């Protein structure tokens, strides 16, 4: 029981404290490590809570079983004793059922959200291929939509697709366009959409957890920087940052609703003044330590769970 409480407390601590903690660290200097840290902490908190519920359920079931076996010989037990024993059984049974129900409800919500997300993505991808024009000189995976909106994104419902609009083609030079396409291809190659979709599903299922709320946005930001690095490697920082500015600055498409440009600004700054190798090394060391701690915690959890399970079975 104490283990379950400790686990629940650990999960809560990680869930509430991590966003503030990570924001004070220069995550942008080592974006891939930053993504790993965020993902590990989310997984660690969820694992801790699931384990806590699992332990409570298991202990409740074991108490009921033990009570049954001890009461078989209790022919001389008083009426009152047996009544309170029955109440305790009922309580533990209720607790066990509640724990199982919570886990089942969560699994259902996650499954449902995942299905809807996947279906919507597939539908959008099919529609884009039907409604857009292929552009062989840009690549076999690229589709052009005939609209003045300046939008470029990638999709992965079925076939991996990069979507650019006619507005983008008109606004960028050939080098800038090549940098943008390289950025999107880096997203597809790194399967970033899978990670973001998983985090989006979690965010929908666990809206009230600060860590999960923040994780999707922060990981999204860091993944953009990862893709920026990959594209800048090939086409240079200038092409990429001028493309960034050309597409974000200027007349807003009528339909853009309150999207924040703060992420754009931090990406541009980062591309214009890349961190020095020394700064990068420091950031990597710091984040590596956090990753180690966050990663070891589940290992310790499972170790102690295994130990307590052994003691319950043998004792």
């Amino acid at each position, binding site marked *: 029981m104490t283990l379950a409480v400790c686990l629940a407390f650990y999960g809560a601590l990680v869930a509430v404290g991590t966003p503030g903690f990570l924001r004070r660290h220069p995550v942008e200097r080592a974006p891939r490590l930053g993504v790993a840290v965020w993902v590990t902490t989310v997984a660690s908190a969820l694992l801790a809570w699931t384990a806590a519920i699992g332990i409570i359920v298991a202990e409740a079931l074991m108490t009921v079983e033990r009570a049954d076996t001890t009461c078989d010989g209790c022919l001389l037990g008083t009426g009152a004793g047996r009544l309170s024993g029955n109440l305790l059984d009922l309580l533990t049974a209720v607790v066990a059922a509640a724990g199982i129900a919570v886990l089942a409800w969560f699994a259902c919500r996650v499954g449902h959200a995942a299905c*809807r*997300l996947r279906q*919507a*993505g597939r539908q*959008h991808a*099919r*529609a*884009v*291929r*039907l*409604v*857009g024009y292929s552009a062989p000189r840009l690549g076999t995976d690229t589709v052009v*939509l*005939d*609209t003045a*909106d300046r*939008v*470029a*994104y*990638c*999709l992965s419902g079925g076939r991996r697709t990069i979507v650019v*609009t006619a507005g983008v083609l008109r606004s960028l030079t050939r080098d800038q366009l090549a940098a943008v396409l390289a*950025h*999107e291809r880096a*997203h597809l190659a790194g399967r*970033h*959409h899978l990670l*973001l*979709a998983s985090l*989006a599903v979690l965010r*929908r299922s666990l809206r009230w957890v600060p860590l999960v709320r923040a994780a999707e946005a922060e990981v*999204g930001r860091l*993944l*953009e920087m990862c*893709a920026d690095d990959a594209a800048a490697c090939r086409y240079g920082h*200038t092409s990429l*940052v*001028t*493309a*960034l*500015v050309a*597409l*974000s*600055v*200027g007349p*807003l*498409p009528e*339909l*853009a*609703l*309150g*999207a*924040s*440009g*703060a*992420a*754009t*600004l931090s990406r*541009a700054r980062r591309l*214009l003044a890349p961190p020095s190798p020394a700064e990068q090394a420091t950031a990597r060391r710091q984040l590596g330590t956090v990753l180690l701690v966050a990663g070891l915690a589940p290992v310790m959890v499972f170790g102690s769970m295994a130990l307590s399970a052994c003691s319950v079975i043998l004792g």
Partner: protein
Amino acid sequence: MRGFGELESAIMDVMWSRAEPATVRDVLDELRGQRDRAYTTVMTVMGILHNKGWLRRERVGRAWRYEPTITREAYVARLMRDVLDDSVDAETVFTHFVEQASPEESQALRAALRRLLEGESR
């Protein structure tokens, strides 16, 4: 199912370029220049497009006459709304290349870029 994607595109291209409804025979005639397709294949795919809501149809004699339910431009506008919709409950997760900047952020971006370009020209 996967092989029909290209044919679906070709058929919708034909339907959108026409001013009036078309039967399977009409579409087949217009496609004949590109690649030879069997009548039944085109008929099947147009039926699929109808089921998916891209085409509506009415019976004329023994054949169906099809027309698009929505123009290409209107559907593109719908897709753009989905992409630019920033609501937390949006059904799909997009990784936009870039998000729109506010006027202050635009100014900061322009200034930062000017400094970079000045630095490079030295």
